[in-house]
């Protein structure tokens, strides 16, 4: 008979668990966390691939100072926040309306589901091209506007040549591509709400609006939070959509921070400076996530038991 401590079963299980977890964890650490640290290191150095003879001397926070004194950086940051605020707001409001409507409709649900998934599933690049085609100078939008008499046929509007109007296709394309996904998540949240609650509320004489504010919204809060966090962080790193639709143009008037960073990195090959920009993007993202979780007071990893 062998003596074993009380917890050896647990220990064996923990050992197996770590054996299961370690491969995936080390992959992620190696290709995500290690590079992230490297980015921090790079951001404190000059590293210009076009001028390898300069080596990469340590310059402290010089790269950050340069970013903060460059107007194009602040503009890019502003564009990103502008895009994020507008598109996320539109998506959540539209998504909620659509989810509420779909939660009632029973027939044709499968069809609507396929439909809703389609824009989500196609490459963002393709979505951008579709909307670029639609908003081309002689495209269908202008044709429709001319037909309706809202535009002079001889002078069609060049959407992509106007620094403010160029945002229209950008935001429309983003709303088109991601609202369906938002709808899907909110719909799942709605379907988790016990329908007898509504019956009870109706027996108590609550109007549809009161039902919405007293039952739907509070119980949908976790789903809404998830949607808001995912969408905000996703919108904040917008790259593909704008790269293809406007390439940041006209000029740099629709350039988001990710595209600006990419330009400095891959076109100008200024890796030190680009890394500093990357770090800033990372920190802002991190900040946004923390603010959200604090403000809405729900833990993401919390499990309903």
């Amino acid at each position, binding site marked *: 008979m062998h003596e074993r401590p*009380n917890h050896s079963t647990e220990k064996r299980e923990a050992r197996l668990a770590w054996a299961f977890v370690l491969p995936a964890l080390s992959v992620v650490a190696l290709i995500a966390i290690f590079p992230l640290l490297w980015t921090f290191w790079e951001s404190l150095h000059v590293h210009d691939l076009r001028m390898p003879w300069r080596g990469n001397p340590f310059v402290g926070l010089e790269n950050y100072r340069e970013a903060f004194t460059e107007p194009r950086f602040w503009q890019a940051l502003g564009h990103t926040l502008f895009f994020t605020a507008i598109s996320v707001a539109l998506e959540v409001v539209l998504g909620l309306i659509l989810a509420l409507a779909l939660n009632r409709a029973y027939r044709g649900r499968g069809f609507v589901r396929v439909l809703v998934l389609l824009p989500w599933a196609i490459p963002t690049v393709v979505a951008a091209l579709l909307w670029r085609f639609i908003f081309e100078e002689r495209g269908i939008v202008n044709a429709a506007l001319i037909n309706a008499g809202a535009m002079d046929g001889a002078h069609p509007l060049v959407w992509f040549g106007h620094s403010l109007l160029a945002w229209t296709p950008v935001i429309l394309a983003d709303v088109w591509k991601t609202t369906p996904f938002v709808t899907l998540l909110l719909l799942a949240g709605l379907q988790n709400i016990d329908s007898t609650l509504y019956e009870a509320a109706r027996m108590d004489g609550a109007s549809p609006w009161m039902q919405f504010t007293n039952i739907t919204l509070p119980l949908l809060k976790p789903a809404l939070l998830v949607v808001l966090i995912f969408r905000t962080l996703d919108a904040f790193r917008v790259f593909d959509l704008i790269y293809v639709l406007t390439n940041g143009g006209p000029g740099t008037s629709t350039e988001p921070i990710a595209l600006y960073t990419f330009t400095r990195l891959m076109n100008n090959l200024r890796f030190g400076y680009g890394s500093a920009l990357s770090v800033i993007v990372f920190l802002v993202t991190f900040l946004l996530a923390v603010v959200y979780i604090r403000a809405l007071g729900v833990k993401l990893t919390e499990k309903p038991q």
Partner: protein
Amino acid sequence: MASIRLEKIEKVFGKNQAAVRSLDLEIADGAFVVLVGPSGCGKSTTLRIIAGLETPTRGKVFLGEQDVTAFSPQERDLAMVFQSYALYPHKAVRQNLEFGLRMRGVAPAVISERVERIAKVLGLETLLERKPGQLSGGQRQRVALGRAIVREPKAFLLDEPLSNLDAKLRVQTRAELSRMHRQLSATMVYVTHDQEEAMTLGDQIAVMNQGVLEQVAPPLEIYRRPATAFVAGFIGSPTMNFFRCTLRQDGTPRLRSSCFDIALNVDASLLTGEREVLLGIRPQDIRLAEGEADSQARVDVIQPLGNEMVQHIKLLGQDNGTSAMMIVPAEMTVQINDQLGLHFPRERLHLFDTGPGRRLGAAPR
């Protein structure tokens, strides 16, 4: 087969959520012990600790003479029947029955011989190639039992195995389980929240409440001499009547409340002075007085059950009266608001202290 012994078992979940507190339990080889109690009382946790699915925070588990506290479930060689049956949905009935034997390295010829035999005993021969999804609830339950029996384990653990069956099948299966236990002379530990099931099945009943083992005894003793007020209230249906009253000794001990004042013929040396006690009497034990009544009551609600009748009554006293229940023969003619004289047979009274509810002394006579 083997005996099972739990020594000072404690299980604490999270920081300080005690599910089981200092539990000692000895289950003899071949015994049928039913763990019973309200939901959340720790009975399932206790069973899972025996199974090895939970590790106790403190204490030891013995199988026979061996300390198995640190053993994983697969080293303990026990079988368990789950409430949900937990049949492997992707395996046919035959593979479900074979799985445990295969895991233990039993020779293929032996496996198929044993599976065939068990299938015949349980009437599963024609279902062997079906998947669990194609079986009825009763059939699934049999497969779950078969999967346990075929293993010939050291002991059987059953976690509310009948709660998913309809009432008729449940009664039938209970009888079958009793028969099976006799034939296999197997050690069985059975968990249920249903006191009637516990009474009909177990040779020993272990009543648990809030993580504490209140009493372990054969069914009739549990019923006749409940060790605590909780056991007294939990076992038996309808539930026992309880009255708070004063136990006082002036020559002969007397129980006094606003509703009654009765003399006990108890061994007076057991009791000293005056104290608050809890008097318990089962609804079946209250009689109609033939001579002088112990208490007067008014009939409040009448619920005929066919062969008998449940009466909700109010014992008349200072306040609005104390509620109680009694069972009388169905033939009795009685109407609501009738006044009745009641007799409490002294040998059927149970006295408990008012704090932890422990039984006081020997049964009053």
